[in-house]
């Protein structure tokens, strides 16, 4: 469900996420018990004939309300690395030109003073594109 772009908390369609005219309904698994396979797919739920429904075996348990937001993959790596940073770079390229925009950021990142809890970026900001998670929580 989440992999396909559906929200785990509400029934908003992925195409309407930018401007939804009405407040989306929160998910309640008990509501989907009587839905057909096609109707359930329209709200982002999948029903399989050979797989029992979770709500059947656990009445009163709304499992979708237990899904917390992942700090690393949704906020830090997901939003900043994948989206926000690319927007900023392309915005600076629009203002200063293709080469000068990147040079400006590289220069600014390279003159950050050495400090015990701050990561050193060297003379380029490129390594941040391909690094994995790091033990120190304040690096990102």
């Amino acid at each position, binding site marked *: 469900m989440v992999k396909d772009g559906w929200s785990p*908390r509400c029934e908003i369609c992925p195409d309407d996420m930018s401007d939804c005219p009405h407040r989306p309904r929160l998910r309640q698994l008990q509501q989907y018990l009587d839905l057909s396979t096609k109707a359930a797919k329209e709200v982002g739920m999948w029903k399989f004939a050979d797989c029992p429904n979770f709500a059947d075996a656990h009445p009163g348990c709304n499992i979708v*309300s237990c899904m917390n937001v*992942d700090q690393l993959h949704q*906020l830090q790596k997901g939003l900043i690395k994948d*989206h926000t940073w690319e927007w900023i770079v392309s915005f600076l390229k629009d203002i200063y030109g293709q080469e000068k925009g990147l040079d400006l950021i590289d220069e600014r990142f390279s003159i950050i003073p050495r*400090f015990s809890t*701050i990561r050193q970026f060297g003379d380029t900001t490129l390594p941040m594109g391909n690094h994995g998670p790091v033990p120190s929580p304040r*690096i990102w």
Partner: protein
Amino acid sequence: MVTVWLGPVAPPLKGHTDHFKFIKSFTDFIFITSYHSHTKTTLKYLQDALSRISSNIHLFLPYHNSYSMTKIPKIHSLLYNIKCISEMACGINSDTEKSDAAHQDLIHDGLRSSNKVNYIPQMLQWETRLYHIKTRVSILLHIVKLDPLLPQTANCRNLLLGDSLVSTKSSPGLKPGINSVMRKCNTIATLAFPEGISILEFKVDALTSYFSTFQADTSPCLDLRPSGSRALWAIRQKIYRANGITATLQQHNDPDPVPVQKTTCVEKWCGQGN
């Protein structure tokens, strides 16, 4: 990255106040969500940051690939972040950063160092060697820092110098850690302790300090700021000076000068200019 990106990004964005407001509110949101405890006031700060994000996000609309903010569930999930915090406490509880880092260090690097054939025993052996080397390095460092005037300390320093772990004028040292040792391909046979060091108390003390560093900061610069009095810092500086390790004072905007050990660190991500 989030810690420092406002400073480098601010001067080029001069004159574009709303764009910068969006970046600042974004930074606010991430920092406040990573608080370890929340009150109504902090939740209100979160709500304010969220409203500023939603009012300025349209400025970056032309720079998105599909020219619309649809099909980004991560942005939509920001709406439920405050509710998640009020229901399930702070977001740090469900943070996957440490487990991901452990997966990167132990699984990925272990698989890369194997020959991909029957790799599980090789990875287990690699990790065992890794911890042996790490333990040895921490014990040697502990002995060197504990009392530099002991006769066996010179032997320990020579062993560390052999691993390029301590910086000298002739050879700039690497970060005290396992990577430099592994890069030099030292065999396990060379990991013996010098004679006279095999005292149980030394090892117990060193192991205790080693395990206490699990939650410590692993930054490349070693912060030598004393936790106690300034006299303690002076004593520690004397020990470092006796060991030949230069300690410098770096003056930042912080009024309290922060003594930082000057090391020439070669990080893992340096030189990956692709």
